[in-house]
């Protein structure tokens, strides 16, 4: 038996037949299945479990309510594990976060003397004055801030994201939540109950574990949950519009959209603020009772109970019955005001010290040894009564766990009888029940849950006998001001961030008189528990300082997420639609290496693993012989009807009026601000019939724009997206005609099919569209044909092409080929503000057209370009020069541009590229300096585009067939 493990306790969560071991801070510990890490460590007799964030003070368990930031641990692969939530994994090695040299010897504990030099708000005060010291403080702060170390190399732990739709979601499975769920069961509704704990029952399982009525209700209501989905270990972390509630579960993130939501989240026990209130051994009575009833662990052997509400008495009696020695109850009020509880305590043999407060807790070796008690109103120098103890159990009141309600802008009002903020106006479909609603007695909580269920049924239009709401409690549950000054300070309001009472006072004195400003200046409530134990006391202090009510002082805005959520849970599984062209099998057969392009998989290159430089060989095939590339990923849009020409003139910058049937032309689309959005080739196949291509990643947006423009201008035109109806293959190179002519039923000769012409013809008996394009700078035909025929044509071309030295080429070779021709890639050579006058595409803009998208902006920008995309070559001829896209052009101390495309041109035998440069550096022959990743500077020079065949002699070539 471990040091503090109790004999079996009725209803305990642990399974004593299943034992495991794990390591924490270098020592081995035993745990039972059902333990959390914290409970197993406490069971073994440990008290210090962590170090505080700023001063590295020893900390132990405080709330054990799923937000105990005192005890955050990590493993080699996972960070920020909440030790009061997670079960220990057998054989796992845990360590505390935020220590240097281990928990016991933590070097950071010596930092306490620095406290006077790190006043609240020091980030804003010291860091930047004098300015030369800023780098020092920056380094210090960066080292000290944050908890845990990210294990970059570890496998990623992604949870699936699942949408769920239900009729009613009940958050919290305590008395009120279970009562509501049981009342909603059996009516054909989909009802989900989500509770963040491992088991249902809420406080019935620890605060009322020995009350027969509570246990009978628990058993009955669970039995009545027929058809209700009960999710445990499921944290509702946010509440969004349309009643959408993300619930983090052990194996998924469920985004639940409900028609009605019942919030029965209960309350959060709050700390009292006194000197050394953070010593290991000081904890809430709830934490003590959870240790006893869930995990059968004694929180301490000799306890003092600090009472600010009736619950303290019940807890003291309960704990004593389970063998925890109670030295005394220190009541902040007159024990007589506790009614029958005072008598029960007396009957149980408990000593009560009334109208007194804990002035200080004193520790030795990082653990509590005694508390100093003074009568209320005692003079500062009074000699305290010293009570020896190893546990100080605090029950001074609650904050409603109302964060989810706040997120949907519920209104709250202070109920003086309860001593708590209570809902005073909830949005449609949202209901609150139980202690979060200010209802405390067991019968009332059950009635409140049932009443909420009746209201839900009314909202859903299901006939039901109404159930009235019970009255809220008339016994005050929270002490109004459990904050006690001490000359030596160290009276902590926020344990996560080590914020003390005097820090709040400093902030108030400095004028941060609003709860939001107070929070940001002090960082109170900005730690891992997000103010769950500190916002209320800070608001109380602020209200007291300014003579306001708690309602006037307010509480900081609650935002998602209610509890910490792992990024892996938010990221979801990386499941995206990846599109493939009909030529996948052909590419695979050629040893393709894939790359992502928009939503598509495209061949980057072929002959994976072959020796030599496959991209260079693909390139050479196109320049010297013939190559073919799958361009089926291009957007393909059919435009026809009476107003087809008008639509194209509206959508694109150039004037298409003079485009003859049977011809194509290159076009640029801008947005209303004149930014280049897309480019493509337009072919005219009939008087009122056009067919155009759009960029691989932009096809859907271009189609959408065309449809919107047609509707806006009320044009008589049809726009059809044929992107996936058509395959497309580009065959290019000097021997293209020789290869294609025998397969095609029209004359491909230059006279009959000139550069930029478009024809419909049959290839291998299949009807297809041919467009003579020049993207790669050689004679080339883009062939658009039905997908069913694409594979056979590709294979036929490869077979016949062997005689000509054919080679399929991928995107890498294509990009190099087009770079030599100076063709821009929209989105690579252009950015989010590039307009045509910053590029060599100004010729496409026809301001003579009275109306087109972007015209107003382009008219203005025409003579105001401040940058230019230009060509450059480097001084070096090293083919391995590591100059890459986005490397910067430097002039003196200034950045004057960046590389947008770069590659080694085999034809020119040097590195060539395109750069976006300030106009001052864009003139021909301007010397340039680029900075490589490693800091090396590389000389270059602005040259004219294109690099290759400036007269287009090759792509217009008459030779060939």
């Amino acid at each position, binding site marked *: 038996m471990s040091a503090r493990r109790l004999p079996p306790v009725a209803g305990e969560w642990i399974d004593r037949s299943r034992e495991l071991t794990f390591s924490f801070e270098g020592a081995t510990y035993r745990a039972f299945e059902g333990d959390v890490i914290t409970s197993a460590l406490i069971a073994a007799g440990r008290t210090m479990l962590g170090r505080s964030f700023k001063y590295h003070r020893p900390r132990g368990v405080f709330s054990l309510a799923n937000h105990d930031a005192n005890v955050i641990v990590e493993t080699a692969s996972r960070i920020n594990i909440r030790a009061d939530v997670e079960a220990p994994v057998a054989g796992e090695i845990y360590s505390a976060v935020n220590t240097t040299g281990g928990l016991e010897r933590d070097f950071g504990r010596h930092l306490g003397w620095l406290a006077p030099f790190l006043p609240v708000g020091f980030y804003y005060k010291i860091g930047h004055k004098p300015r030369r010291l800023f780098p020092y403080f920056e380094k210090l702060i960066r080292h000290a801030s944050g908890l845990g170390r990210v294990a970059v190399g570890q496998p990623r732990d992604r949870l699936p994201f699942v949408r769920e739709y239900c009729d009613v979601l009940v958050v919290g499975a305590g008395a009120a939540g279970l009562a509501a769920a049981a009342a909603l069961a059996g009516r054909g509704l989909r009802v989900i109950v989500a509770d963040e704990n491992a088991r249902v029952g809420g406080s019935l399982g620890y605060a009322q574990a020995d009350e027969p009525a509570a246990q009978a209700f628990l058993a009955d209501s669970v039995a009545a949950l027929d058809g209700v989905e009960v999710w445990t270990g499921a944290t509702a972390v946010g509440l969004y519009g349309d009643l959408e509630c993300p619930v983090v579960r052990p194996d998924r993130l469920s985004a639940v959209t409900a028609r009605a939501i019942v919030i029965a989240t209960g309350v959060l026990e709050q700390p009292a603020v006194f000197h050394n209130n953070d010593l290991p051994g000081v904890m809430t009575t709830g934490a003590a009772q959870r240790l006893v009833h869930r995990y059968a662990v004694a929180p301490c052997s000799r306890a003092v109970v600090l009472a600010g509400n009736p619950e303290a008495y019940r807890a003291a009696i309960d704990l004593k019955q389970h063998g925890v020695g109670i030295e005394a109850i220190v009541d902040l009020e007159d024990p007589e005001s506790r009614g029958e509880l005072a008598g029960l305590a007396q009957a149980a043999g408990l000593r009560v010290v009334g109208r007194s407060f804990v002035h200080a807790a004193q520790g030795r070796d990082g653990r509590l040894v005694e508390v100093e008690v003074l009568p209320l109103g005692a003079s500062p120098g009074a000699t305290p009564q010293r009570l020896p103890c190893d546990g100080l159990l605090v029950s001074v009141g609650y904050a409603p766990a109302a964060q989810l309600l706040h997120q949907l802008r519920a209104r709250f009002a202070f109920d003086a009888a309860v001593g708590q903020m209570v809902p005073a106006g909830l949005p449609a479909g949202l209901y609150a029940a139980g202690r979060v609603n200010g209802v405390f007695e067991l019968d009332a909580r059950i009635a409140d849950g049932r009443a909420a269920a009746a209201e839900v049924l009314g909202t859903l239009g299901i006939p039901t006998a109404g159930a009235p709401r019970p009255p809220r409690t008339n016994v005050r549950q929270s002490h109004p001001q459990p904050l006690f000054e001490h000359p030596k300070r160290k009276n902590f309001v926020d344990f996560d961030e080590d914020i003390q009472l005097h820090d709040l006072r400093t902030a108030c004195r400095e004028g941060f008189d609003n709860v939001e400003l107070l929070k940001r200046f002090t960082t109170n409530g900005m730690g891992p528990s997000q103010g769950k134990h500190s916002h209320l006391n800070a608001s109380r202090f602020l209200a007291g300082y300014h003579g306001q009510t708690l309602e006037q002082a307010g509480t900081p805005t609650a935002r998602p997420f209610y509890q910490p959520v792992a990024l892996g849970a938010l990221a979801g599984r990386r499941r995206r639609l990846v599109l493939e062209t009909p030529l996948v099998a052909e590419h695979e057969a050629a040893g393709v290496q894939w790359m992502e392009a928009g939503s598509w998989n495209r061949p980057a290159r072929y002959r994976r693993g072959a020796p030599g430089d496959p991209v260079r060989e693909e390139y050479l095939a196109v320049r010297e012989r013939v190559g073919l590339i799958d361009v089926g990923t291009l957007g393909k849009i059919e435009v026809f009807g009476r107003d087809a020409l008008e639509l194209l003139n509206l959508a694109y910058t150039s004037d298409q009026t003079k485009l003859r049937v049977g011809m194509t032309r290159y076009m640029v689309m801008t947005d209303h601000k004149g930014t280049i959005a897309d480019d493509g080739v337009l072919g005219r196949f009939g008087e009122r019939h056009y067919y155009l291509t759009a960029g691989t990643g932009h096809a859907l947006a271009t*189609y959408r724009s065309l449809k919107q423009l047609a509707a806006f201008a009320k044009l008589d035109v049809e726009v059809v997206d044929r992107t996936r109806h058509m395959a497309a293959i580009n065959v290019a190179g000097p021997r293209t005609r020789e290869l294609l002519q025998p397969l095609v039923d029209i004359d491909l000769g230059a006279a009959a099919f000139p550069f930029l012409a478009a024809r419909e013809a049959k290839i291998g008996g299949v009807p297809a569209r041919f467009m003579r394009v020049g993207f790669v700078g050689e004679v080339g035909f883009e062939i658009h044909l039905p997908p069913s025929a694409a594979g056979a044509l590709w294979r036929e071309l490869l077979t016949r092409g062997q005689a000509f030295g054919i080679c399929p080429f991928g995107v890498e070779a294509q990009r190099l080929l087009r770079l030599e021709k100076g063709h821009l890639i929209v989105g690579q050579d252009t950015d989010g503000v590039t307009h045509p006058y910053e590029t060599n595409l100004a010729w496409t803009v026809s301001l003579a057209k009275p109306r087109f998208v972007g*015209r*107003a902006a382009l008219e203005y920008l025409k003579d105001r370009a401040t940058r230019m995309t230009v060509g450059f070559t480097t001084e070096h001829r090293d083919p391995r020069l590591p100059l890459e896209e986005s490397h910067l052009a430097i002039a003196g101390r200034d950045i004057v541009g960046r590389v947008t495309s770069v590659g080694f041109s085999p034809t020119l035998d040097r590195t060539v590229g395109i750069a976006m440069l300030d106009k001052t550096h864009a003139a021909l022959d301007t010397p340039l300096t680029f900075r490589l990743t490693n800091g090396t500077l590389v000389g270059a020079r602005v040259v004219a585009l294109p690099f290759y065949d400036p007269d287009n002699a090759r792509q217009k070539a008459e030779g060939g067939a």
Partner: protein
Amino acid sequence: MKIFDCPIIGRRPIGEFINAGGGIGVLAEDDPAKARRAMLFGDGTARTKREWWYHRPSQLWFVIERETASDTVLGVTLASGETR
């Protein structure tokens, strides 16, 4: 709004729609200077606005009257030229 109860195509997740706003309206402006002002200094106040919404799965354009302060849709029409 997470679900848009469209009178024409029924209840659909809002994520299926692209709200393109009313920017296309500048095309109707004949004075380029006025068009640029409308484009760059658009009215950001919360009020009833006319917006173009594109429904991706059905590829339909809608013109929506929406009270942006309360995120309430007041009127829905298919954009001209669209057919159900």
